[in-house]
């Protein structure tokens, strides 16, 4: 097994989790961040002009990418941690068995 494998698996799990539970909220929050930025740039109340819509879309994309990255990286770190634990525990077990034998 490659040294990277556990963290890649972890990242995939993180990403799957993101798609299952966090994609929608991320789009909502990102879109709202876009609305707030548009309010500052074009003034409130925000009118649905092309530029405002683009900024909201941009916010949604950034929200999804940001939260998705958080899940993927969190998953990768968790995967790496599991990888380190399992690989360091396995030889230790083997060692104790040897001493018993």
């Amino acid at each position, binding site marked *: 097994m490659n040294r990277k494998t556990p963290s*890649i698996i972890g990242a995939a799990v993180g990403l799957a989790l993101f798609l299952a539970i966090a994609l929608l909220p991320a789009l909502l929050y990102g879109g709202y961040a876009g609305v707030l930025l548009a309010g500052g740039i074009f003034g409130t109340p925000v009118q649905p002009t092309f530029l405002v819509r683009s900024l909201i879309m941009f916010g949604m994309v950034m929200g999804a*990418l940001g939260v998705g990255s958080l899940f993927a990286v969190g998953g990768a770190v968790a995967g790496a941690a599991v990888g380190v634990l399992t690989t360091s525990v396995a030889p230790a077990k083997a060692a104790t068995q040897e001493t018993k034998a």
Partner: protein
Amino acid sequence: MKTLLLSLLLTFPMAAAAADAPAKAAAPDPNQACFDCHVASKPGEVGVRPAEFGKSVHASFGCTDCHADYQAPGPHELAPLTGADAALVARSEALKASTAPRAYLACGNCHAEVVEQVAASVHGKWAKGDAKVAGPTCASCHGSVHEIVKGVATPAPAGATFATGARAISERCEKCHADPAYVEKAGLKGDVVVTFHDSIHGRLVNTGSALAPACADCHGAAEKDGKGVLRPNAHKILAKTDPASPVAGKNRAGTCGRCHAGANDNFAKLVAHNDPAHSESKIPHFLHVVFSWLAALTLIFFAGHVALDLFAEIRHKVRMRKAGHGHDPAKESQFVQRFDLHQRAQHWLMLVGVILLGVTGWPLRGAGSPEAIETSRKILGLFGGPHGAALLHRIAAVMIIISGGYHLLYLVLHGARRTLAFSMLPGPRDVGEIRDNIRYMLAGGDRPAYGKYSYLEKFDYWAVFWGMIMMVGTGFVLWFPVFFATYAPHWLLTSAQIIHGEEATLALLFLFVVHFYNAHLKPSIFPMNWVWLTGKMSHAMLEEEHRGQYEELVEKKKDPHP
């Protein structure tokens, strides 16, 4: 005599038992005569739902306790009213305020004080003057009169001097105050409900806070209840122009002071249904515009940078594969020390702190969007609600402050020992590298031979200084708003609210999209650059990412893998 007593004693418990038994239904309901014609099956339908009426606070009363004069069967002939009662009912009928206006005359028989209070309040005006629309009846706030249950006022938390009122009733204020057509006719200010939900208090209430104020908690007169705890009295709401109103002039500070001990006039100007960006001073508005542009442009620039880099990465991979480049195991197993333990510890504190700040902070900000309230409530619920999240937010803030202090101390100690490296300082070399890298990403060729830190890493580093000053500075203002209101001008507090929100958006999106891409997710680095854990970087990666530094190293050390 004795036998009478005995039989009484015997029949009492039996009577009680009989009352509990299903046989109770056999006892004729005195209201049955009316139910013959007036049973409703769903809420909103004309008539009374017997089961709900049976659970209401008035269950023990007869229909005619309120509907005086009514007799079965209907339609009903009622004796004409006289005097004030007649005028009141006539107004109510004219404005279609109620399906049975006469019934409200009865409330005063048992709730005289309340009826007087409501009549004297701003909500009683319509019944006296010539209003164009009906103002509230008792049912507007309490819901269907036949189904009133005891108000579920929040119990006062230990040590609190003020207990917030029944949330469900405050929600009913919105039926009128948020209805554009109604507000227009009544000549009321239209956006009070929107601005409330947008305010820090509205977001807290919506995400489940029992401590933050809803409408009646600021607008109702505060009165001591039986236990000496102050509670809002929603029957005594006054126009803001009335000098006795809790939100008028000098009273306002005391109203905020119900919960914010020591609040002064300067503090009290902070939240009053206005968009913080449009307060008296021009400075908050100016900062709002500046920070929105700053955040948007920075994010657009770096999002573009990420997109270009991804494109270049893929192109590079394809070319490497075609050229049949392999890995050099020797270079992969040799390392340079990049970060010492102190630097890594500073980064760990910072990253845990910032992620916690993000997940406990953004949901509260996001709750300003009606569609996101449910999500925010659930996320903050993971931390025990908005106040649990607020505590964690402060702990996380302390973590990043420690990290920052630790880093400054680290720099000072290195400076004193003359071992401070200046590799982080931006210089003319970076300008050339920005140009070369953009050319590389667009057109291919060679990547710039970065030194120890590329311009992206330098930006990451210095952006943290800026971000820390902005977020920690404004965060303290929000943490101790009463203190700052005592010494600082009002615009500073309002500006702090604006900057804290906008800068948080910028920082989080930058870190999670741009920094995470560069340090973890870009194809050549995925799943991550391990340096944040191990402090070491392989020669292979150094050659790839920091060719300038790698070449220097080879020069110096006569590295076996040139």
